[in-house]
Structure formats: structure tokens, C-alpha cells
């Protein structure tokens, strides 16, 4: 069941070695986002208030956990960063002051900069006509190369 939900599969796939923890990946996210993910105590308040959580395969608090453990593959294969609307509800409510929205932006940035996501918006003419400029520009900013 967990498997169906997405990449979460602690007991089957993810092997945590001490060396992996506090991986350079988590630090990279911290650098780009300014968020200290190691402060997270997994309360889940970020996910509980996230408007897009229903559509995410991995919840924001799980992204934080995976990042702590340096599980980049799991994060990279998740749809979460591409579903997040950068609404900041998570960041402003986190009891430990972790900027989760910023961290997720960092994940997007790492993917886009690595160019391994092949992210294209691929809007049709019709869509471009329909959408207001504010939607097109911000979507490009956030989720496309």
C-alpha cells in the first residue's frame, strides 16, 4: 500500500547507512533555501495544512525526512515539488520555523539546474490564450526550465 502511494518504501528499498545521514544533498537544500531541515521533529503540521497534499505522492513532512536522510532519488521521483503551489502555508505554521516551501523550491531548483527532469510546460496555443499572463509567467518561473 505504501508502495502504491509513491516512492515511500523504507523497509524494501531504502538502506540507511550512517554515512548517508546529513548528506551533502540536505546541505545543498539548506544552502539554497536557508532552511535547517534537521530541526524538523516530524510533527506533520506542514502536511496537515497543505492545500495540495491530497495530490502529492509524498507529503511535505516526508520530503523533509527523506532530505534529512539524503534520499535524493525518492525525492526526485516524487511529484510533490511539482504539485506544490508555493503558498507558504507550511512555512508559516511550522513550529520549528523550518521554511518548507523554500526547501521545496530548492528541490525544484536542483532538479531544474541538473536538467535531469526535462521539465517543459508545453502549453498549447489555446492554453496560452486562455491563461492570464500571471499564471503563465509564474508557472514558468516555478516549474519549468
Amino acid at each position, binding site marked *: 500500500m505504501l508502495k502504491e502511494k509513491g516512492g515511500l518504501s523504507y523497509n524494501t528499498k531504502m538502506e540507511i547507512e550512517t554515512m548517508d545521514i546529513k548528506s551533502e544533498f540536505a546541505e545543498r537544500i539548506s544552502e539554497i533555501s536557508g532552511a535547517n531541515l534537521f530541526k524538523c*521533529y516530524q510533527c*506533520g503540521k506542514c502536511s*496537515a*495544512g497543505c492545500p495540495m497534499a491530497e495530490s502529492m505522492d509524498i*507529503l511535505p513532512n516526508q520530503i523533509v525526512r527523506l532530505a534529512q536522510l539524503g534520499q535524493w532519488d525518492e525525492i526526485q521521483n516524487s511529484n510533490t515539488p511539482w504539485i506544490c503551489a508555493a503558498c507558504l502555508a507550511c512555512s508559516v505554521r511550522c*513550529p520549528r*520555523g523550518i521554511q518548507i516551501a523554500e526547501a521545496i523550491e530548492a528541490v525544484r531548483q536542483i532538479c531544474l539546474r541538473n536538467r535531469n527532469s526535462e521539465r517543459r510546460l508545453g502549453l498549447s496555443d489555446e492554453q496560452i490564450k486562455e491563461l492570464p499572463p500571471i499564471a503563465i509567467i509564474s508557472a514558468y518561473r516555478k516549474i519549468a526550465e
Partner: protein
Amino acid sequence: MKGSPIKKIGVLICHCGKNIAGTLDIPELIRGAAALPDVAFAGDYKYMCSQPGQELLKEKIKEFGLNSVVVAACTPNLHEPTFRKAAAEAGLNPYCVEMANIREQCAWVHQNNGHSATEKALQIIAMMVKKVAQNSPLFEASIPIVKRALIIGGGIAGMQAALDIADAGYEAILVEREPSIGGHMAQLSETFPTLDCAQCILTPKMVSIGSHPRIRLLAYSEVRGLEGYVGNFKVKIERKSSGVDWDKCTGCGICMEKCPTKVPGEFDRGLGKRKAIYTPFPQAVPNKPVIDKANCLYYKKGVCRICEKNCEARAINFQQEPQIIEEDVGAIVVATGYDLYSTENLGEYGAGEIPDVIDSLAFERLLSASGPTSGEVRRPSDGKIPKSVVFIHCAGSRDPEKHKPYCSRICCMYSTKQALLYKHAVHGGQPYLFYIDIRSGGKNYEEFVERAQSEGVIYTRGKVGRVYQEGDKVIVQGVDTLLGKPMKIEADMVVLAMAMQPQLTTPELRRILKITTDIHGFWTEAHPKMNPLGTTTRGIYLAGCGQAPRDIPDTVSQASGAAGKVIGLFSQNELPLDPMTVYVEEDLCAGCGLCVAACSYEARSLDPQKRIVLVNAALCQGCGACMIACPNGATIHKNFSRKQILNMVDVLT
């Protein structure tokens, strides 16, 4: 000192078996010591601290007429009292004995360097000889103790402390701000983990307070001023104006019955009503009413006076003035308890505006047989029996970013209790708890949680993100972090386990008592481990939730502990004072006051007439800060004078 007799100093060097003698060259030390100025005798012994060693010390004092002694041995922290006592037995003032620490700070740490170590040891001895030459005989003073205690706060903590002190035979004055004692415990329904009824165990104690011959209960009163020091405090207490002459009032209750003004009652957390003339609850002690001036028609508009007309005892006195009384007490127990952090602070949970989202104390009132619903769980909005209740843990706690960083320690337990009691009270009702971690570290606590879990209370691990009203439901938007799934519950009611915080009036009291609080406003203990009951002011002790969140068993233990401290203090007839304090050379003092600011104990004050500074020996802790602050050398630390230390420096350089 001027005019002091010729110094005859004895030096006794200890071998400490091989501990000292194995490294240091004892004959060399004796030779060196004997050659020091003023030294009348230098000798040694295998074990100075042993009985024969002490006898030797006494003998030599008498034999040579020694007026000062240096024992070169271990650290003064170990045997200074031993040698001082022995010297006293031989008729020498104990403060004329000093130790030269040649074991811990010499022999033991330079074991492979005997030559240098011996050189160093000789310097240490010389230094102490020079110091002791200027020691003055000191005499322990003592102050009388007023054997009467003041207890501030009449919750279970203050009540327990008062009863313990009074039962031990001392007088206790219990000051409670509210019209009745009882504190928050009086509001509780049943108590974890045993589920005994709070009122049933509390009421008898309240009654004993009210009737105890040695307890003076001052309800509806507040401490307004404090002066003095341990054993001798002077306290000012305001008896607030209640509009009722309690000496005349018989507690019949007619006035409350007849009063036409109804307002939401604080005791029932606004869920029930009380009159403008009221006692907080029927079992109140004292069972005398007060008039709530903000709501009484007479105070507001000058009309009504129905209570007055109906009071046969003629106890109503609208003109009653507040009264200040002064009392002498020897010790103080601060037991001011807690408040709950306000739900208004939690915007995401409705900011206190959704009627069916209530705080945990309000829920206690709903569960309580004496509560506004007589113990039937009915929700505030429409009086319906809620079929599902969500309990949210850590509401405002463990949130360093926006609220309180600390764990409130008891809410895991009382939420569990409330869920269980609710389940027992409402057939088919479903409680849900949203928690982050369950903190059940207490005797039989985990077992209690286990019981709740096995009885079907649903625990969900995750913090709720939002609570909002939709129709007549309260929607709880949470997450199950164990499943990694967001979840929504359409609840009938939500209970917020609000963070515990100190009373909002604590800062005012802090200024009066001059004791400290931490950044959250909880009273600070003298030492977190070794003196958790004391404060930085001798004679003031702490009990209950004003110091940190805790449950009733811990509160009662702490209160009895604080009472024990007070009783211990009162068991002495006089309080001996450490004579190693400071004194002021009046001729040198310019009255500049620099030292007053340097003292952390308020031990110094300026005498405006003589324009000099005075030292209160009872308050002085002997730190020496004032001596350093004084530009004129007017303040002298007894037996640690500037001159003595400079002399020691001289020897070393």
C-alpha cells in the same frame, strides 16, 4: 591589624601517608616553614586529620601559645572544618586557621616532578602564612527567626505547604488572590491516572485550611510589598474590597440567590453563569461572597441593592475600602500556579471564536459533575451531545517559532484522561487524539495510556494544521504521519490541550519579591538539580506550577518539600550567619553607592544621614564584589582583604 599581638604562627605539615610525602620533601618544607617570619613552630605528622593529628594540633597551640595556624595538607574543601573545630577546642579562634593546599593542587598533580613540587609547596605555605598573619578572629553572629510562614497562592501547592507547616506547629498565612482557595484543581473532574474525583480529595483539605488553628487564610488578598531578609521579612498584604463584610457574613447565600445580574463565570470557563455577587463555586473556602464591581448594578449605575436588602446579617458594605495589613514572617513559599495560554493565540485553530472549539479546562468543567452541564458532555454552541471529539495535543506548546518552546508536560496525560472520560460518558462517542509524542513518564502513566488505547481512543500521530467551522461541524484538518496521509475529521467538538504558562501577574510579584523568573515567566529555582525548591533569596521557596508545568502528585511532593525547608529553618532558634562577610570602614566611605549597585543581594544600602553605606550581614553572601567596586578601599572583605591578597601575590612573585 593595628595593635594586634605579636603573631605566633604554627605550621603543621601533613604526610597524608604517601600521598604528600611520596612526592614532596617534608624535611625541606619544615625547614623552609620554620624560617618564615612570625612562625613560632613548624612540624609534621603522618595523618593530620586523624584523631592523634588533631590532638597534636591542639597540643602545639597550647605549647607555643600559637595565635594562628596553617595546616599544610589537602584542600580546605575537605578538612578546613575539621581543623577549625580542633583549634577552637584548644581555645583558638577557628578563623585564625588556614589550610595550605599542597595535596590536590601540588603533590598529586606534579608526582613526577618532586623538586619543583617541593618548591611550589613551600611557596603555597609561605603564602598562607602571610595571609593568616592578617586574619582576624571572627565570631559567628546569629539572628532571631520569626517562626511564621507566608504562602502566596492557594492552589493545591499552597494549601499543602500551609498544612504541612501548620501541622508541624508553626503559623502559616495563606494569601490567595481569588475569593476562594482551591486553584485549578478545584476545576478538574477526575484525575489521572487513578480517576479519583478532584473535588472529593480536594474539599477536605480546603476545609482543614479554613479551620486550622495555625493557618490564617487571607482570601481575596494580594501581596503588595516585601522587605527584610530570611527569618525577618515584613510583608504588606492588601485585602481587596469585596463589598461584603466577611466578619458579619454567615455564608447563607441568599444574596447570590436574589441578585438579578448574571454573567459568565470564570470558574466554569465561561460555560456557565454566576451572579454579580458570588462565590466561585459552592464548596468555596471561605464560603463568603464577593461583589464583582464591573458587573454589579449598584457599582455601575447606583441602583438595585437587592443583596443588601436581603442580607439579614447586614454584611453587605458597598463602601468597603481595601485594607493593607502588615505581617512579620520568617519564610515564604511562592505557589502561584499557572494559567492556560489563550486559544486566541491560535488563529489556525479558530482563534477562540468557534464556540465548539474549547480549551482543556473548559472541557474539565463539562466533564465535572458539579459543572455547568452537571457532568453531561454537551457542546457549548447548541447543547447537543457530541458524537465525536477531537483532542489536539501541544496546542501552543513545543512551538519555539510562534508560541511556547517547552513541553507543558501534563497535557498528554489529561487529554488521555479526558478522551477516556468522554468515552465513558457518551455512549458510542468517538474520541480522536492528535499527538506528536506521548509523554507519559510517571508512575502508572503509560499503563493509563495503554488502557485508553485499548478502550478505543484513537491516537493519530500528527499535528493538526487547521480547524474551522462548517455548518454545525468543526472540521479538523490533520495528517497521519505514520501513514503519510492527510486526513480530515468532521467533529462535533474540539478540545485544545493548551500550553501551561505562569500567571500573567507574575512580573508584578517578581518585582515585589525580588526573585527571578525565566524568559517564560516561570520562577527560577536556586539550582535545577541540587536546590530546585529554593530561590536565589534565602528564605523564599517555590512550589507548584509557577515554577514549571507539573501534575498534582509532583505539585504536592514539591509543596511538602518546600514546607520541609521552611520547617527546617524554623526548627532553629536562631539563624547562624557566616561571619566571612564584608564590613565598611566608615571613615573611608564616601557614600558614593558604587558598591550598592555591585551587590546582587541587596545587602547594601546608603544611610542618607551619615552618607555612608550600610551592610546587612544577614543578606551579605560574602562574594566580595563590593570590595572591588569601592574606589576608596572602604569596604573590606573579612579575611579576604585586598591587603591580604596583595600580600599573597607578593609571596608568589
